[in-house]
């Protein structure tokens, strides 16, 4: 694992070095199409824009108002039809359904980099989908494992826990569910897992679903919210039920709300992903590819910052909380 990471770091560093030299030579234009409006993608957009400024490239950003292939595809098609984009950095909203529409971008001469979510099985070397340059995102299965161990520890290794998730067949949250269940099954035989329920990226729905499970399972000990909306909803339901401190919540994604709830003792662990890194590196990769770099890693894992109540005040950790200036 460590060796792989350092190899990636070297490759990325190399890419950056080459990229910064030739940035002026080839003026490229990049389209950025994330999955939906939320703090995670807004921070990623900051990373994209910062890199674009540093490397002197143009970026065109379009954020889908709701999650789904039926919303993302027409926007993607219009970006392709502009005819002036060289690269598209995107978070596919379905790992299978978005293969065709993104292949059409490649056919039109636009190279694709996926961030946060991937296509197929995420292995662009040996897997069923090979055309994207790279996947830059979290190792979500590992994130799920970390969440499982954190939650298991918080509830003392036994009881019933519940997963609230966003959408089926989305590579990121699917990985988190898988990793979570895997660890509980193998390492914590006294813990029973319920769910996942899918809230379709709607925090109100997540609240409702979690509230219903709290009613149904009076002995529920913990909740795992697999992304921004799930964690917000799960946290709100626990607070509404007056069960803060009795039901532990582990939140994927470090929104300000999740950190606030940690202060109140509702959320015991927050996994901060590094969306800024994802956005910044994706632009670097595009610039490097344009400059002729051929050894870009096909998969980059950006890692996590694990936030709990002991380190939340530490500036080195707190910087990973998703903050968008002015919002």
């Amino acid at each position: 694992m460590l060796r792989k990471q350092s190899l990636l770091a070297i490759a990325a560093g190399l890419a950056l070095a080459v990229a910064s030299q030739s940035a002026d030579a080839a003026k490229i234009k990049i389209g950025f199409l994330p999955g939906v409006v939320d703090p995670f993608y807004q921070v990623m957009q900051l990373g994209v824009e910062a890199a674009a400024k540093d490397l002197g490239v143009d970026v065109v950003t379009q954020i889908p108002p709701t999650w789904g292939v039926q919303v993302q595809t027409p926007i993607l098609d219009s970006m392709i039809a502009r005819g002036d984009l060289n690269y598209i950095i995107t978070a596919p909203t379905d790992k299978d359904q978005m293969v065709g529409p993104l292949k059409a971008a490649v056919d039109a001469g636009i190279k694709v980099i996926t961030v946060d979510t991937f296509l197929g099985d995420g292995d662009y070397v040996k897997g069923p989908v090979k055309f994207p340059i790279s996947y830059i995102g979290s190792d979500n299965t590992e994130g799920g494992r970390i969440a499982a161990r954190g939650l298991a520890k918080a509830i003392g290794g036994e009881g019933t826990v519940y997963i609230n998730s966003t959408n089926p067949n989305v590579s990121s949250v699917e990985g988190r569910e898988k990793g979570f269940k895997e660890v509980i099954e193998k390492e914590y035989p006294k813990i029973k897992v319920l769910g996942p329920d899918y809230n379709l990226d709607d925090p109100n729905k997540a609240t409702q679903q979690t509230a219903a499970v709290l009613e149904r399972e009076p002995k529920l000990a913990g909740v795992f919210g697999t992304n921004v909306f799930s964690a917000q909803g799960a946290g709100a339901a626990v607070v509404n039920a007056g069960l803060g401190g009795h039901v532990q919540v582990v939140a994927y994604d470090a929104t300000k709300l999740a950190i606030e709830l940690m202060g109140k003792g509702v959320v015991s662990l927050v996994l901060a992903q590094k969306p800024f890194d994802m956005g910044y590196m994706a632009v670097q990769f595009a610039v490097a590819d344009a400059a002729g770099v051929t050894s870009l890693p096909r998969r980059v894992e950006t890692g996590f910052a694990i936030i709990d109540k002991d380190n939340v005040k530490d500036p080195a950790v707190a910087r990973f909380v998703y903050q968008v200036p002015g919002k």
Partner: protein
Amino acid sequence: MTERGSRIVLPAGTSPSGLRTSSQRLALLLSRIWAWLFLALMILFFVIAVPLMSGGSVNFLTIRNSQNILVAIIPVLLLGLGQTFVIIAAGIDLSVGWVMSLASVLSALALRWAFDSGAPLFPAVLVGLVAGVGGAAVVGFVNGVIISKLKVPAFIVTLGTSFIVRGVAYLMSENTTVIGLPAGIRAYGNDALLYYIPGEGGGLYFLDRPEVSGELLRRMDTILPYPVVVTAFVVLCTMFLLHKTQFGRHTYAIGGSLQAAERTGIPVDRHIIKLYILSASTAGIAGFLSTLRFTAGSAVIGDPLLLSSIAAVIIGGVSLFGGAGTVIGTVIGALIIAVLTTGLVMLNVEAFWQFIVVGTVVIIAVLIDQSRDLITGRQRRNAAA
């Protein structure tokens, strides 16, 4: 929308049209063609603004973009076509979005089953079509029966079935995207009648996707993809049905006045059942086509489309009080929404502006519909009371 029969349809001879002034006639004409004008002006705006804003590197009027717009309107339009009939008959069908999702899941499951049991690709696709549209039609039948026989307001019935259908779609898809479909169906959902490669080494190809790569592939335009052709065929069928047949005349009559339609001997209950079957079926076609396009079935695919499809119908001039509207109006309404989305992306304006513009246009459409009634002297009983 539930005030069935609330409009008095004046017999031909008593219409006060003879008393109209020329300015009234102009206003009337404008009220009929304003959606066309709005679409034309919007396209003109994008044709000028897009190159201007991008420094000349992006153009709105390209073959690729025109085809994009045609592909983008498909789901909204198909949901809107059946809805047009239902709303003309003074009903509403709130279930179409989730019926589309159900059809997408059903067609994917059936297609996969047929192919895995050894059927060749084309028959397997037909099995998918029958399963998707057939399953949707069953929902339409249930809607129609409850509305016409049990006299429950359409709004409530279709709201109810939309939830039921949603649950069924999730359960059938086992809560995930239905994958494992034969790769060949991609061609059905994405290939086209014509391919055009401009410039050197290019040419025009009919029904035969040229095996090119690199620069030639980049320049290739895909013209009239099959789903667009299928949708155009459905548009023609519904135009014929609404404007040339007894079925269409009965639809207007029921929307004009339910009681009057009953008195003239129209089999109202049976007609209403047929209308909801039709509405669900066009949604079923939309679901089937989306399965081909994305080579997978999805229980969430129609969710974001319901409100856009109703907006398209209203913008197109179908009166929510029933009795008035055309198929071509709905096509224009769907085009306005699709052109907006595409144009705003090309201008690099945030997509959210689309909602503000569409919302405004919907309200204008209803205002124009009402002012037309004022000019023509048509009245609503409830408005007069």
